[in-house]
């Protein structure tokens, strides 16, 4: 007899499990860091101490405040054009989060939908979709991204499109196997007997039960997506000036690496700290929402 788990409203379910998992070592510092990044992103221009694009050759190549020629005016130093690195990092946070948000929402949405279709309808539809997934996964991610980047005009939109096209397969595969086991449950059969249309079954019965998995997947993807965007921008195929991206900062700084070690280090640290925090929060989320998979 299959467990008949009725479809619960997503909000209550998540809140309850989060409350239950609170005791289990919530990663405060990473979460705080992430909150800072989000605030920086939302604050936009209002939060930066200087104009991120403000050229001022007179103060070019200032080191960070703890070094001899540094000062608190430019706490993390300036780059070759005199732009304040801290301000640029804050501005870059905005771009990174926008990209991460849209990319994950769309790739997750598209991937989950395709996965649900494949898992639910099965047989020919499933086989076809899985072949497509296999084929796409046989092209290394960045390579595929490059092919797309070659044909689309560089910029924020392209980056998001490229990430969506590259990452939907992960969601599709995992959601598909979830659906495969879920669709055998009694409540799905009952819904069908009651005459529910496919869309209703998807929305009311299947979706709430894969929400957990989706959430965990999404949170674990944040780090990867940020790094992916940084890589694209670093190569010059992603974000373009005057937009600021951490990857772009690193690409610029490469030219004068011998003069300003901080220009190479600081944006990289920003990437690393953001990814680390989101990975830690994602791990905690996974442990909370699925205690069976907790790693000792």
């Amino acid at each position: 007899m299959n467990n008949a788990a009725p479809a619960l409203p997503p909000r209550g379910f998540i809140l309850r499990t989060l409350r239950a998992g609170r005791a289990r070592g919530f990663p405060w510092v990473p979460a705080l860091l992430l909150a800072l990044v989000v605030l920086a992103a939302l604050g936009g221009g209002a939060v930066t101490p200087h104009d991120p694009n403000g050229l001022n050759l007179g103060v070019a190549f200032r080191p960070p405040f703890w070094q001899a020629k540094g000062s608190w005016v430019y706490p993390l130093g300036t780059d070759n054009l005199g732009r304040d690195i801290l301000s640029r990092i804050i501005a870059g946070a905005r771009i990174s989060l926008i990209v991460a948000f849209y990319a994950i929402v769309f790739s997750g949405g598209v991937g989950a939908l395709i996965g649900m279709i494949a898992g639910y309808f099965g047989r020919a539809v499933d086989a076809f979709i899985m072949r497509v997934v296999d084929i796409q996964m046989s092209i290394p991610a960045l390579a595929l991204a490059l092919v797309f980047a070659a044909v689309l005009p560089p910029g924020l939109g392209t980056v998001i499109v490229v990430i969506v096209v590259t990452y939907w397969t992960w969601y599709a595969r995992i959601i598909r196997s979830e659906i495969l086991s879920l669709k055998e449950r009694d409540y799905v059969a009952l819904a069908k007997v009651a005459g529910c249309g496919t869309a209703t079954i998807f929305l009311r019965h299947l979706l709430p039960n894969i929400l957990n998995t989706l959430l965990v997947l999404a949170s674990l993807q944040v780090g990867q997506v940020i790094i992916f965007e940084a890589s694209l921008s670093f190569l010059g195929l992603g974000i373009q000036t005057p937009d600021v991206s951490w990857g772009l900062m690193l690409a610029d700084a490469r030219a004068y690496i011998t003069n300003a070690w901080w220009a190479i280090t600081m944006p990289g640290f920003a990437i690393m700290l953001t990814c680390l925090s989101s990975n830690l929060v994602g791990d905690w989320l996974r442990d909370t929402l699925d205690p069976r998979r907790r790693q000792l």
Partner: protein
Amino acid sequence: MLGFLARRVVLGLVSIVGASVVIFIVSRLSGDPIVLLLPIEAPPALIAATRQAMGLDEPLWMQYLIFAGKALTGDFGNSYRWQMPALRLVLERLPATVLLALAALSFSILLAVPLGVLSAVRRGTWVDSLGKGFAMLGQAMPNFWVGLLLILVLAIQFNLLPAYGYGTAAHLVMPAIALGWYPVAAQTRVVRSAMLDVLDSDYIRTGRAVGAPEWVLIWKYAFRNAAIPLVTMLGVYFAAMLSGAFVVEVIFAWPGVGRTVVEAVFSRDFPVVQAGVFFTSILFVLSNLLVDLSYSLIDPRIRNE
């Protein structure tokens, strides 16, 4: 087992064909390649003639078939930029990429295995926490940043290794480390969790009951079993190396396919982009096939199926 292999080969072929379709379609998305070949002021007659000569006036599916047919004979067209066959350009540079990917993979395994095994054997102690922390850190650092840091410290600050180029083992060290850094985290986790499972098993207890020394238990009896999940993932890791190579090669001016394709993307040199990505996919499919083959060598339970 032959049946299993045959199926995998067929699937691999399907994947390659599919990849070629995807690559073909996407590169055609940009519109008219003619624009890149001929100067803007070219007379319409010349444009039409060139278009016909290149087969660009045919319907898309026909163009694909022409492309596929030519590809089977090794003709990927000429590089728009270099006026030489794209295939030759790519094949000449493929070995360098493979070398880099293999070196990076070896580096990551050499790091991940001891870390994972030690973490598992000393579960809960500071060694375990160190291993996990190190792995977490690795997963948060983009490979190109690691490369830049390595250049900053080892090449510029201490002048120990060359920052660019190709030719000696010294040139390989930094790119391999930069590329191999990221998967260390995932691999360490796989090894650790596999070892934890294995160390709890009945057959390890039998080994203990028989009086085998501890190091034999860990490195011979336990690790052989724990290595299986790692080996099965090798194909995936190799693909990640191939993917990451694109960026690392640019940083270190490594003369591989990756750097060539990136440059080709900038110059809209489609034949090279197509050939480069296509061969990277072939490499990937091949490596997966090899890993599948090795399953039977690693796990005797599969040998008889």
